[in-house]
């Protein structure tokens, strides 16, 4: 039997989000618009490394509507990811330097931190490989099927 890879699982969840956007108009979760006017989707599992996820975000110009999925309880958090220069909330942002969030922290841990940020909902992540501003759009949505 073919082993379902993580990437294929991500593809399936992305497909469900696409279908929800097209057929049900679920677009309030897609708050990030890239420079080219598109609203890119990136799907990650909560145990994935921040550095790996931000690497995938870099494929779409540093912009992403990031869906972080916890497969154990079949819920997901929705976050906005933008390049530092594009963030409108920079003044209210909390800076997490490599000592606070490092490349081998998980994206699930990062979103927990984002959810408890005191000043606003945007956290600046500065890793050696990637820089991004991450904000929480919505917590604990059911994963679409």
């Amino acid at each position, binding site marked *: 039997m073919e082993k379902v890879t993580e*990437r294929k699982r*991500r*593809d*399936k969840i*992305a*497909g469900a989000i*696409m*279908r929800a*956007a*097209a*057929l049900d*108009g679920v*677009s309030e979760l*897609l708050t990030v618009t890239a420079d080219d*006017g*598109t*609203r*890119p*989707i*990136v*799907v990650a599992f909560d145990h994935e490394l921040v550095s790996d996820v931000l690497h*995938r975000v870099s*494929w*779409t110009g540093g912009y992403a509507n990031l869906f972080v999925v916890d497969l154990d309880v079949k819920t997901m958090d929705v976050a906005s990811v933008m390049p530092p220069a594009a963030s409108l909330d920079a003044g209210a942002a909390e800076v997490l330097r490599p000592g606070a969030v490092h490349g081998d922290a998980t994206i699930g841990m990062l979103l927990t931190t984002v959810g408890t940020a005191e000043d606003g909902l945007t956290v600046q992540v500065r890793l050696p490989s990637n820089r991004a501003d991450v904000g929480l759009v919505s917590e604990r949505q059911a994963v679409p099927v």
Partner: protein
Amino acid sequence: MRYPPIVSGRGKYGAQNARAARRRARRSSEAAAAPELEAWPVPPEGSWDPASGDIPYQPTATARITERIGRVDGRLVFYAIMLHCRNERGEWINIWRTDCRHGTVHRHDVFHGMSNPVVLQPITSQHDVESTYRTSYAEVEDNWEEMESRWRSGEGDRA
């Protein structure tokens, strides 16, 4: 005494054949008179809701699936599902596009030639747009890896 078979001037089964011919003619004329189902006109892009637009998802560094959706009054009125692959020069090439413009769901792909669409189904109502969307997306979702692989192996248009 043996009676000869009852035949008319049109032969043994002449009456039946004549009735069958009349039925065929009637059905044919009815079919000709029936109006052809008209293509459903896609509302112009200017009338689409803000929820419309392009949503890309990139499963790998070299392949991107993008759906373009048009919604009016909360209903899907247009879609296009596209597969782009990155070539060796770093350019994104559209190798597959299924959309529902011009009254049909049709597919453009590099294997048939992007300018030779393969018509899949007529679109005669907004309901057809919604009902074909799932199939169109699933077709790309299930086949993009094979399409990319075929294209990278040299099949299809290269432009």
